[in-house]
């Protein structure tokens, strides 16, 4: 028997690998297989249709990606610089608020944009600005400009996180050392500062780019009404009208586009020339004195943060109460929340709390959120334990790669892959389409990278010397588990679960292809209301999601803080 067959880690690793194959590899292999040799490739890539099917949406998608990446770099980079390198007041608060927009689903921000800027062009009364008598031009109300702005407001938080982490590790001595050579200020900036921070800037930009090109909700809400198509909305449209093979081809292309840029970003972050400071100890941080610009810059930063976090929430709340979004703060009514059906009002639709579908959706969403969070977390922990404990040639590497692969997959393409595999019966195994299980599986797979990350942090925390220290006291396994491992791991694990919960209930891209009327979820419901023109209802539903998200985020934040204090 070859030694590998007797390896104690073989069976656990194989088991983990099987689960990962079913969750991640198989759906991808299916869309590849289904389109292999299919005529759809030619139709999409080179036919009379391909201009509308692929090239124009691709051009729009790339334009959006580049513009959003640039915008995020500018705003995220500016805030990161302010927070890590200057003496701006309220640094900690700005640093905290700048990470929040990522917690607000992008369709919430998009809806808020509509509340403010929409005009009568696509029917309806127009938004708040029109109500104030401002004629909003089409380019500001619909299409590529608002899509780009909304996506920047959403993804700059990502760029901020990456860049500020990098900047805070840049050692002020590096710059002093350059000053010692007598180099000019400009030469120091171009020769030392920029090259040192560039990898972080590019990594932040490529993350924002990948996020923007795969985003579905924003172009769907702000672009589709004026027939602006991106790869993700095109892919959605193809599958909705039953042209699944073309849809799959688009999904593969979308994955390729976003993966190339994400891969690039990761490379830069991990590269040997990256910002990571080479140092013994004793480097001094360098705080730049802003002088008179201190308060104006602080105000600007706070304004950016407020406009991208609190303002959309206020707009949504007001718009869920006002009959006309052109008069956001008058005639408030709770009808859209609790009203009975009334033919004279809102085309006879009852308030969302009387809508049986909403209650079902609330149940399904909560159920999905909780079960996916727990399941993903469990799988993530097992994957983390298995891949850190045993190192089998090929197998361990494959498991690790597979568990992080979903990071590269745009949600809507992932949804398409799941339909391809589990949408139809497999042998005697019934089709999962129309069951919550399909949604749960897809979401679990999509959340795996975060769960594995949490799992690894936990494993790193509880293995090693801390556990050994307890073992030396003679404590048995259960005793150690109960009084050392669990208390240490619990806050991190719970925080991980909560963050997955937030991502799940705010997700639209994955579920929009997978839901059926039998399995409604809140985000899709809100999207449906919005695309049918019932904005108040859409806003109300979105607010419900936001309230759940904020509550979960705050709890997670609290737990993190407690954990950090304990460490």
């Amino acid at each position: 028997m070859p030694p590998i067959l007797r390896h104690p880690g073989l069976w656990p690793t194989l088991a983990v690998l099987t689960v990962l194959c079913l969750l991640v590899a198989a759906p991808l292999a299916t869309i590849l297989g289904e389109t292999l040799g299919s005529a759809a490739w030619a139709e999409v890539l080179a036919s009379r249709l391909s201009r509308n099917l692929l090239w124009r949406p691709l051009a729009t998608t790339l334009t959006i990606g580049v513009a959003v990446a640039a915008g995020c770099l500018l705003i995220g980079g500016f805030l990161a610089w302010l927070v890590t390198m200057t003496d701006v007041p309220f640094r900690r608060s700005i640093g905290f608020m700048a990470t929040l927009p990522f917690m607000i689903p992008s369709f919430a921000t998009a809806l808020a944009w509509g509340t403010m800027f929409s005009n009568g062009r696509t029917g309806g009364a127009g938004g708040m600005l029109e109500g104030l008598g401002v004629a909003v031009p089409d380019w500001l109300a619909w299409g590529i400009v608002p899509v780009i702005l909304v996506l920047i407001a959403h993804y700059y938080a990502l760029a901020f996180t990456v860049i500020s982490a990098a900047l805070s590790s840049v050692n002020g001595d590096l710059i002093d050392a350059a000053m010692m050579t007598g180099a000019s200020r400009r030469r120091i900036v171009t020769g030392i500062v920029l090259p040192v921070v560039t990898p972080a800037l590019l990594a932040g930009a490529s993350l924002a780019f990948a996020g923007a090109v795969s985003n579905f909700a924003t172009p769907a809400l702000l672009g589709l009404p004026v027939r602006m198509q991106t790869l993700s909305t095109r892919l959605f449209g193809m599958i909705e009208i039953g042209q699944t093979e073309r849809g799959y081809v688009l999904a593969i292309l979308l994955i390729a586009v976003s993966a190339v840029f994400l891969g690039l970003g990761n490379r830069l972050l991990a590269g040997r020339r990256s910002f990571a400071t080479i140092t013994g100890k004793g480097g001094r941080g360098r705080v730049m004195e802003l002088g008179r610009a201190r308060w104006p810059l602080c105000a600007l930063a706070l304004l950016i943060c407020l406009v991208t976090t609190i303002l959309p929430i206020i707009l949504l709340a007001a718009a869920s109460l006002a009959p006309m979004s052109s008069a956001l703060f008058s005639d408030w009514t709770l009808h859209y929340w609790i009203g009975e059906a009334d033919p004279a009002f809102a085309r006879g639709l009852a308030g969302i709390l009387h809508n049986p579908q909403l209650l079902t959706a609330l149940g399904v969403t909560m159920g999905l959120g909780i079960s996916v969070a727990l399941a993903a977390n469990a799988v993530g922990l097992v994957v983390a334990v298995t891949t850190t404990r045993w190192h089998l040639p090929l197998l361990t590497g494959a498991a690790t790669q597979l568990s992080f692969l979903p990071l590269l997959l745009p949600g809507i393409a992932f949804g398409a892959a799941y339909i391809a595999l589990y949408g139809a019966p497999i042998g005697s195994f019934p089709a999962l389409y129309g069951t919550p299980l399909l949604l749960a599986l897809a979401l679990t797979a999509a959340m795996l990278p975060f769960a594995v990350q949490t799992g690894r942090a936990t494993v790193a925390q509880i293995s090693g010397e801390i556990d050994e220290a307890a073992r030396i006291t003679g404590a048995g396994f259960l005793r150690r588990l109960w009084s050392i491992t669990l208390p240490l791991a619990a806050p991190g694990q719970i925080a991980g679960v909560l963050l997955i919960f937030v991502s799940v209930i705010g997700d639209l891209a994955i579920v929009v292809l997978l839901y059926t009327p039998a399995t409604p979820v809140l985000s899709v419901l809100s999207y449906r209301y919005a695309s049918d023109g019932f904005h108040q209802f859409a806003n109300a539903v979105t607010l419900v999601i936001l309230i759940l998200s904020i509550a979960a985020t705050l709890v997670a934040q609290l737990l993190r803080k407690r954990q950090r204090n304990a460490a």
Partner: protein
Amino acid sequence: MITLENLVKAFGTGNAPVVDDVSLSVPAGAFLVLLGPSGCGKSTLLRMLAGLENPTRGTIRFGDTLVASASQSLPAGQRGVGLVFQSYALWPHMTVAGNVDWPLKVSGLDPAIRRIRVAEALDLVGIADLAGRYPAEISGGQQQRVALARMIAPRPQIMLFDEPLSNLDASLRVEMRHELTRLHAATGATTVYVTHDQVEAMTMASHVAVLNRGRIEQFGRPGDLLTQPATAFVARFVGTPPANLVPVQAGAWLGLLPDPALRGATGLAMVRAQDWHLSGPGPRSLPAQKIEVVPLAGRLVVTCKLGDQRVTVIAEPEAPLPADLHLALPEAPYALFNIEGQPLP
């Protein structure tokens, strides 16, 4: 030659100065060590020499040139100084050779000359084979050598070091001490070296300035610090092991054992570890408790508790420690200081 006159540095107005009225002068080619505990202002003083901070008051002269005063300051790049940072501050995006080359490039040297200088510098610190690596790909000791090479390649007239060895392990530190001495001899550059390790000061310095809270406690040759400590602070800071300072009151050791050799003083009596010895009870001895025993060069350094103070004493390894441990006092203290730590005549 470096001359400091009444040098003061305070961060922000109204704050207590971090460097307080420092004056000293060393000849060209000297190896000056700034010695002092953490936070005493050593790095700040060094950074003023480098041109990275400006003095609040006072002047810095290199030879006859005034390089810094409260009103004017020669930029760092024009002072002809090189600095090795405690954190090394290697530029992570350049190779080892690139790091050494960049300052030369900035100064506008010919590429051919630069190549020779880089090779020379790398050779001198013994890392010629690492030229193509990035800083992240070499060890801490090697990074240290890159930082040295980068400093010496432009041939500065003055070399500055900020605790360059504090991140290295003990054996590497001994080796690098030797390397630095060799480097100093090879370049002949005037050197200012900051450390809190008195061994480094004793082994490498031609001149030592002991700093405490921004002020100079003593400035002199390394040997002088041992034989003629100017203050109690210096006596307690230098020597291996450092000298003991035993409280005396009205001419009595610990206020208990009167001794005419104390001349009625109240303050601190300096007793070097080799000046007293362990004994049993006796007329000129004080009771003590043993804390630890460290073998050193064939003898023992015994740390004891005397009153509420730790003191050290040298003992011979053959003689067993007395059961009822006492310290037999010397004929006379090596020196006497008053309560403020100033020497008594």
